[in-house]
């Protein structure tokens, strides 16, 4: 069903004939408050109302009424031309005249339709024709009146349903009901269409499947929202509790911080005072504390031994030298002449000459008892004595002290003197210093322990005062305090976003898509009256882009002219839209106290 044009004649502010041509996509009818937006919408509603047969006298243009003189007659007419398997025109009208009392009398209500079949124009009953082309149930999906009064889906509930979907997600449950309504309605349509047209049956099936998809999507979104709401709620509860006990939290944190600092000091002091006195006796040579006296004994003793050994050694050397000197002196001179060496001739030669009684040095006989013979015997004896003395001398060269243990001890003594000795002598003061240090730190530790105990007591008292709040919560909660606030804001922001923009637009878009197969237009009266600029922009962009006939009556896209104070169209915003645009506004000379001055002027813009 594609709307082509509408004629509104003498319908309230629409004085005379006013015609709107609709595009196949979006048609915007822009007007300010009181300019006739809702009247336009209600003219359509009146045309589509097949439930009432009475004549709505108050729909007659006041201006037209005021012009009539007695007996004059005119008509109120709304005529809609649309394509629905051929061109169809629906026309609802009634006549009115002014009687002799000046009263307006309506009569002759007509609701007729004209259907072009095979280039023949057939007159039909309007109601019947309308129901065939545009079922009551479908009309609900197509007419959206206002953001807060969309009497479309359900006479009693629908308004709340869609509009609340726009603005309040808590009413989203109703939207599920709407889905059920869809279900019932589509079943009805399906049954009817089934009997008429197999093609329609397939379309209905497709619609069914889309409906299920949409229901699933709606369910998903609903779950997501429920999750977000739960998160916001959880954070809110935690935050409230913490806010109530913020002071306690701060006190608790102060005490806790104090305890932690003290415990840190305690740990350090414990480490300082943790000394293994037993192993230090060995590892740090503390056991040498009284050793210096012993060391001195050792050094003195070794020194004395060394001295004594040297003395004895020297005495022995002297004795041996004296012995040797004596021997050498005895051998030194004979008859004032230097003798031959004692070993010349040798023992064997001497013995041979004595035995043979011949001096083989001078070649003369030396008979036994003669002087040369006695000389030779004396020479041999000297030789033997020298040999014996030599043997004795070699014995004298043996060391008096063959061992060097005292030297070894002297070396050790030297080794243990100097730096080592100072180290040992320093042990006493080292131990005393260490003990004094530990004692002092232990006093500090006692004080820290006392402070910690006091802080713990203070903490216990605080916890008693704040009954119902665990230490864990005071501890953990406070850490999250800032995080909670931020997270709550974030979650709330996301929820609002979901509520006000995405879900609403998503739902509308889906609805239009859902019905697209049947080619029914969507007609909105001021759907975005409370939308922000961004949301409004998103809304028009979606509507403008979808392959769907939409007619929107709105005051959006108007802006205040700073110079004149009047409202004018926002050319920039309009330029971004590709749709047909009408502007409606009140004719000049409007007087709020005189209804007959109301007239809507319709002006095509693009």
């Amino acid at each position, binding site marked *: 069903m594609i709307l082509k044009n509408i004629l509104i004649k003498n319908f309230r502010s629409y004085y005379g004939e006013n015609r709107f041509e609709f595009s196949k996509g979006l048609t915007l009818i822009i007007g300010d408050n009181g300019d006739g937006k809702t009247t336009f919408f209600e003219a359509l509603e009146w045309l589509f109302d097949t439930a009432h047969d009475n004549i709505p006298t108050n729909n007659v243009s006041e201006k037209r009424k005021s012009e009539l003189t007695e007996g004059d007659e005119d008509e109120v007419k709304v005529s809609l031309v649309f394509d629905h398997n051929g061109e169809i025109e629906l026309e609802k009208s009634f006549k009115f005249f002014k009687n002799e009392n000046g009263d307006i009398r309506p009569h002759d209500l007509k609701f007729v339709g004209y259907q072009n079949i095979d280039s023949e124009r057939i007159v039909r009953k309007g109601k019947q024709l309308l129901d065939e082309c545009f079922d009551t149930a479908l009309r609900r999906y197509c007419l959206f009146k206002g953001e807060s009064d969309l009497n479309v889906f359900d006479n009693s509930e629908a308004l709340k349903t869609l509009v609340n979907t726009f603005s309040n997600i808590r009413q989203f449950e109703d939207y599920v009901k709407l889905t059920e309504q869809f279900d019932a309605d589509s079943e009805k349509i399906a049954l009817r269409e089934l009997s008429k047209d197999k093609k329609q049956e397939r379309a209905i099936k497709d619609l069914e499947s889309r409906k299920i998809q949409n229901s699933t999507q709606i369910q998903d979104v609903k779950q997501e929202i429920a999750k977000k709401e739960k998160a916001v709620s959880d954070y809110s509860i935690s935050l409230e509790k913490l806010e109530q006990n913020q002071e306690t939290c701060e006190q608790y944190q102060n005490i806790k911080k104090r305890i932690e600092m003290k415990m840190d000091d305690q740990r350090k002091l414990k480490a300082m005072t943790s000394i293994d006195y037993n192993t*230090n006796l060995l*590892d740090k040579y*503390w*056991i040498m504390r*009284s050793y210096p006296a*012993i060391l001195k004994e050792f050094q003195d003793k*070794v020194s*004395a031994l060394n001295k004594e050994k040297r003395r004895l050694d020297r005495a022995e050397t002297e004795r041996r030298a004296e012995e040797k000197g004596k021997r050498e002196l005895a051998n030194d001179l004979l008859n004032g002449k230097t003798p031959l060496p004692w070993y010349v001739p040798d023992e064997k030669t001497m013995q041979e000459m004595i035995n043979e009684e011949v001096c083989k040095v001078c070649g003369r006989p030396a008979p036994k008892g003669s002087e040369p013979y006695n000389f030779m015997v004396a020479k041999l004896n000297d030789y033997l004595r020298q040999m014996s003395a030599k043997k004795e001398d070699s014995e004298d060269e043996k060391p008096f002290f063959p061992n060097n243990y*005292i030297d070894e*001890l002297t070396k050790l003594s030297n080794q243990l003197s100097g730096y080592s000795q100072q180290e040992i002598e320093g042990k006493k003061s080292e131990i005393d210093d260490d003990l004094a240090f530990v004692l002092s730190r232990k006093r500090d530790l006692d004080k820290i322990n006392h402070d910690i105990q006091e802080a713990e007591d203070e903490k216990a008292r605080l916890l008693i005062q704040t009954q119902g709040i665990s230490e864990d919560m005071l501890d953990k909660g406070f850490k999250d305090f800032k995080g909670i606030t931020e997270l709550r804001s974030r979650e709330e922001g996301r929820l609002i976003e979901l509520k006000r923009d995405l879900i609403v637009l998503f739902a509308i878009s889906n609805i239009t898509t859902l019905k697209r197969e049947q080619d029914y237009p969507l007609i909105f009266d001021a759907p975005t009256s409370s939308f922000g600029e961004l949301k409004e922009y998103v809304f028009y962009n979606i509507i403008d882009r979808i392959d769907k006939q939409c007619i929107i009556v709105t005051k959006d896209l108007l802006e205040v002219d700073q110079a004149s104070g009047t409202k004018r169209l926002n050319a920039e915003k309009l330029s971004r839209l590709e749709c047909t645009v009408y502007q409606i506004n009140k004719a000049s000379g409007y007087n709020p106290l005189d209804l007959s001055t109301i007239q809507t002027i319709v002006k095509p813009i693009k």
Partner: protein
Amino acid sequence: MATEKLYDTWASRNPQWETRYEDLIRSVCDYGKGETSLREARSKLFGAGYELYIIAFFIGLYSNQRRPLTEDNTKRKNFGWAIENWGNIERRNNRRQYPKIREYIFAALIARTDLDFLALEKGDITLRKAVDILITTMEEYANYGFRFIKERTEDNPNWLFNNEKALLEVFLAFDSEECDDDEDDDEPEALD
């Protein structure tokens, strides 16, 4: 002829102690457990058994008190660790090696042992004999020290365990104590 060093010969020995102190050593040291049972060792005051022996020796030394060991060989034993290893093997956390302690013990024995070092130097006394005498001094000082500790623990079984400074206090007390001088063999040998 290169002679063997007196110190090395002494350090290669295993001094003996009386078996009656074995329980004491076991309760205080990680004696007889091997290096693997550190869990138990953590509750002990010392590592190897010789550590308490060293403590006992210095108690005897500073007290200038010697106590001969029983002559019954069946009532004596040694650690199976030669002196040259003492102070080298302790590896528990935070422990340090203390090898120099051996030289200090040796020097103390030289100072306090009645041994004719000149005769040793001349070769009139054998090295082995001299080292025997030094070891005897060592054993007798330690034997006194063991008895000292044991008597304290008999009076108060937790003496060592309830007071972490118990042993240190023994050594601190030597500051003010006059060494007992009632033994004949504690004077250095007259040298002439």
